[in-house]
């Protein structure tokens, strides 16, 4: 599968830009890691304690160019430094622990929403103007306009705190030890329901709307008319001929909103105390944990770029016109 060299150039520039911004941003924030560590101590920050901490971290006052070189060197060797808050753990340790949970959450939410949104969008387009369409489609627009934080707090309050149907936090029952057994996976599943449901409305709305409009265009194409003329069943035409080709813009869209999904997952994880990247980023920001913040922003940039790249490739696979051009 070939991706044009111009596209690759765009990715390279984006990556370089991200690396530089990522270096500058935390340094524009007020406060220093040592101050933040002292702040964490609160009432225990006796003069002796403050001195001890300063002695440990020395002064992080190198010239900025030296810091930048160190930073680049670290990137090249996948050494992102040591976390300030979780000292002496390394950033890689902290992030790898969290990445798994966030990917699990985001991927589950995307798959779930994709199934729901695409089917709803396809049906709405098939019978556009019908009762289903007039009810579902405006509702979808409303759905993707609700900020995740509202959804998160509402679901937490209604389903976890008031009704107590679901747990209020954690990725699995803290009494369990992780392992390959039904109990553990069941616990993970139950703990993921509310966070996934929180991330989903926005995605479902997004996918339904995109699917509907692109399906309407596709349904006007000649080959769909031909499919009907062949006497194929409605379902076969709708999904075999229509939806298959209407999916392309939905996938493009997915790549575009991936950033927003991560944004939503930050809020969701904070509300549900879910041990993913969002919660880690939040506390790292509060604790001025530069190394972790940097590692994390870089990871998110890479994820978004990677997803776009992946979509480029998938596009080539599913779009027959591109497949021709690629040869």
């Amino acid at each position, binding site marked *: 599968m070939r991706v044009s060299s111009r596209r690759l150039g765009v990715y390279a520039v984006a990556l370089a830009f991200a690396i530089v911004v990522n270096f500058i941003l935390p340094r524009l924030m007020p406060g220093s890691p040592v101050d933040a560590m002292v702040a964490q101590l609160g009432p225990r920050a006796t003069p002796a304690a403050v001195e*001890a901490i300063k002695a440990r971290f020395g002064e992080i006052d190198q010239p900025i160019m030296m810091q930048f070189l160190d930073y680049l060197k670290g990137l090249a060797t996948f050494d992102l430094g040591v976390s300030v808050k979780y000292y002496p753990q390394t950033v890689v340790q902290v992030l790898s622990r969290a990445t798994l949970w966030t990917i699990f959450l985001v991927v589950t939410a995307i798959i779930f929403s994709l199934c729901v949104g695409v089917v709803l969008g396809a049906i709405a387009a098939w019978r556009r103007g019908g009762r289903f369409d007039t009810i579902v489609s405006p509702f979808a627009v409303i759905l993707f306009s609700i900020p995740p934080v509202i959804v998160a707090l509402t679901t937490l309050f209604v389903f976890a705190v008031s009704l107590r149907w679901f747990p209020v936090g954690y990725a699995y029952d803290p009494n369990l030890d992780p392992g390959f057994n039904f109990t553990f996976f069941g616990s993970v599943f139950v703990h993921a329901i509310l966070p996934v449901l929180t991330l989903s409305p926005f995605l479902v709305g997004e996918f339904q709307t995109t699917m509907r409009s692109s399906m309407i265009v596709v349904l006007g194409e000649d080959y769909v008319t031909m499919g009907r003329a062949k006497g194929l069943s409605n379902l076969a035409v709708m999904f075999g001929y229509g939806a298959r080709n209407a999916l392309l813009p939905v996938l493009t869209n997915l790549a575009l909103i991936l950033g927003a999904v991560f944004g939503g997952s930050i809020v969701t994880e904070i509300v549900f105390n879910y041990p993913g990247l969002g919660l*880690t980023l939040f*506390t790292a920001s509060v604790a001025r944990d530069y190394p972790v913040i940097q590692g994390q922003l870089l990871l998110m940039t890479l994820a978004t770029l990677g997803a776009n790249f992946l979509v480029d490739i998938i596009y080539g696979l599913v779009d027959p016109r591109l497949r021709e051009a690629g040869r």
Partner: protein
Amino acid sequence: MGMRKRSLRNLFQRTSLAAAVLGASLAFGAGMASAESVLTMHIEEQTSWVSNFNPFDLAGRRQSTMDFIYEPLVIFNANDGGKPVWRLATSYKFSDDLMSITYELRPGVKWSDGQPLTSADVKYTIDLMLKNPAVDTVGAGQTVASVEAPSPTEVTIKLKAVNSEFPESLADLAVVPEHIWKDVADPVAFKNEKPVGSGPMTEVRRFTPQVYEQCRNPNYWDAASLHVDCLRLPQISGNDQMLALLPEGTVDWIGSFLPQIDKTFVALDPQHNGYWQPPAETVAFEMNFKSSNIGNFEAFKDLNFRHAFSLAMDRKSMVDIAGFGYPVVNLHASGLPPRFDSWRNKAAEGDKDAFMGFDTDKANKILDDAGYKKGADGFRTTPSGKPITFAVIVPNGWTDWIDAVQIAVEGLRAAGINASVATPEYEQWRKQLLDGSFDVVMNSRADSATPFQGYYQSLSTAYAGKLTVAAPRYSNPKLDALFDQYLKSSSDDDHKKIFNDIQVLIADDFPVVPVFNGPTWYQYSSKRFTGWVTDKDPVMNPENHDNNRMRLMHLLRLKPVQ
């Protein structure tokens, strides 16, 4: 909220619990899981537990490290006039010239691995601190000249200067076992995941990012007093997460800020849920006596201005509106916290507290009489005609304090003083206190077991501007002389007498404007354990936080409900 439904969740818990018990009994031998008394507590907010029980890593250590793994030598109980509770030590004695102190250790104490705990371990620990400033968490480098261990149960510490408060400074000393630590390459970065300690709860049985358990020390010297088998610490990331967890009723000992506590906590289980949040350290408005703004500088120096400032403070609203009613109004010019009532000097009260009420008319009158004229804009200038204008700084995010400052500023403006609020980030706020680039701050000081330390660190010339608690940069030779006398005497009666004079002097000179005493944070459930400290039995600070050594004695009071 009250109705408990049978739900998916409960079903799940039951099945998973059954499986967990099954697993546990396979692992540890049947029946063990049911006979244990496990106390669930919440001390610190974290997004993920990191295994770190290194007592010298103040910011990184789990806050159940001190006391529960490393027992103190002696604990001074602030609620009992600062009387000592002897733990690893059974007594100490100053030499006649007060230049050295000898601790007698409790005989027969063992480390959790069975090795004897001796004076060599104490000497080793303090020497380690002297050698390595990064682990010197008690400031031994400033106070200790050298350490000797004349016998297995005796430790003699030579001091650099006369300091009758020295035992207080060792309050947070964690004595570590030499036979383990001598092989540790880097005592700063060491995570001590399998700690060997002297306290009641040394065995880390389970450690996951979401929960950890610390269990009974098999060789604990005071095992007869210990009725709890394990401490269980679930990971909780913040107060809101805590609020959401409360209806489950799974936590026994809590140290959180719970808004509207009667509704959010007690009402969930009125029979068992309780709290006691006694007043802690004094919060005061502090003016910078070294202000670089010439008008402010002139005003702050003037006792009349400080009196008027105090009369403009609506303390009751600060407590009721800003503090959810948790703090307690402080109406003493000396600012003495209620927890030190036994130290209170009647001579520093009465008419000396005349400026501690809320009386805008009186504040205006004092300022008028002292020559602070109002200009066309309605704001006053100093008697020499210079403008007075300042911001009161308070850390961003400390909502209750910000609201209190707002109330104070309204009161000041009603008295014709051009005050405003500024909310820098906490780190920035600390910096400003230390470098003096501020005019007025709302601040508190750290108390120890006696009131002396709090006053000494915040108002002595020696500390002025060196600590955040010493932000006012107050300097008064008379007061310094009293502090010095106090440090040089070692008798309780002399300390009482000198401290009486200190209170009178402060009430007269009114360096800071005390407003209220913040609460301690302590909530408990007697569903699974009894013996909790309550307001009916106020024998100690009940908090489970890392700054309260008495939490060890609190743990030893608890008994599982049969």
